[in-house]
């Protein structure tokens, strides 16, 4: 006999199709959200970033260690 009172998270039996549907929608939003974020992550980094860092690095080296 299957456990009908299993904790939420699985069974569509408990919440019915409404809950299942809601979960699907949340999943869809999650996928989309990651996609939106990853789009920017995958953009090439503008040279400016590395230039600034290189200059700071050289400056630090010139000043010498404490």
């Amino acid at each position, binding site marked *: 006999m299957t456990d009908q009172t299993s904790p939420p998270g699985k069974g569509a039996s408990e919440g019915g199709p409404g809950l299942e549907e*809601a979960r*699907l*929608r*949340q*999943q*869809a*939003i*999650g*996928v*989309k*959200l*990651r*996609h*939106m*974020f*990853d*789009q*920017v*992550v*995958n*953009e090439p*980094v*503008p040279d*400016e*970033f*590395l230039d*600034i*860092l290189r200059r*700071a*690095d*050289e400056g*630090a*080296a*010139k*000043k*010498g*260690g404490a």
Partner: protein
Amino acid sequence: MTATSPATPKPPSADDKAFKAELVTLIPHLRAFARTLTGDPTAADDLAQDAMMKAWDARASYQMGTNMKAWTFMILRNQFYSEKRRSWRQSQLDQEAAERTLVAVDDPESPVALDELRLALKTLPEEQREALILVGAGGFAYEEAAEICNCAVGTVKSRVSRARKALQATLEKGGYARDGRAAGDAMRSILAAADRLSSVRQD
């Protein structure tokens, strides 16, 4: 005494080198997080550069081997809010502009689902939006997100949960005006697009 040193710079220390190498790998993530906070690519890159430099300047206080991504995100977030406090008037104007955009955006060629999501995100309270982005897109655990946002883990959890519900509700009822589009269109296009994306990913 330092001004007279010869033109040949000393080689950077090994620690600096390792720090820099790791920081460079985080730049794309800092840019993405900044983009979601500011909603504007140019302002986002300014913010990400500032955060990167703050992290570099503070490298002595960073412990190698701990989570540098969370550490730099925290720096970026603090930077964002301190600038925002200084220019609250400006952000208020931005907010008004954003609200106008919500109504005005009507480009039939645009990739609808992503636009809808971006706009819907903008309608969320800031603290909900950042929590959702960190956990839902940035790949942070609730505990890490709590550290970044300087709040309790339970607070992050409830913010993420409220954000998810609000986002879904907005997308389903089309909480912003977009002429001629029936309620629920946004959610339908997101579902369709997500279907395509996830089927591609799982291959």
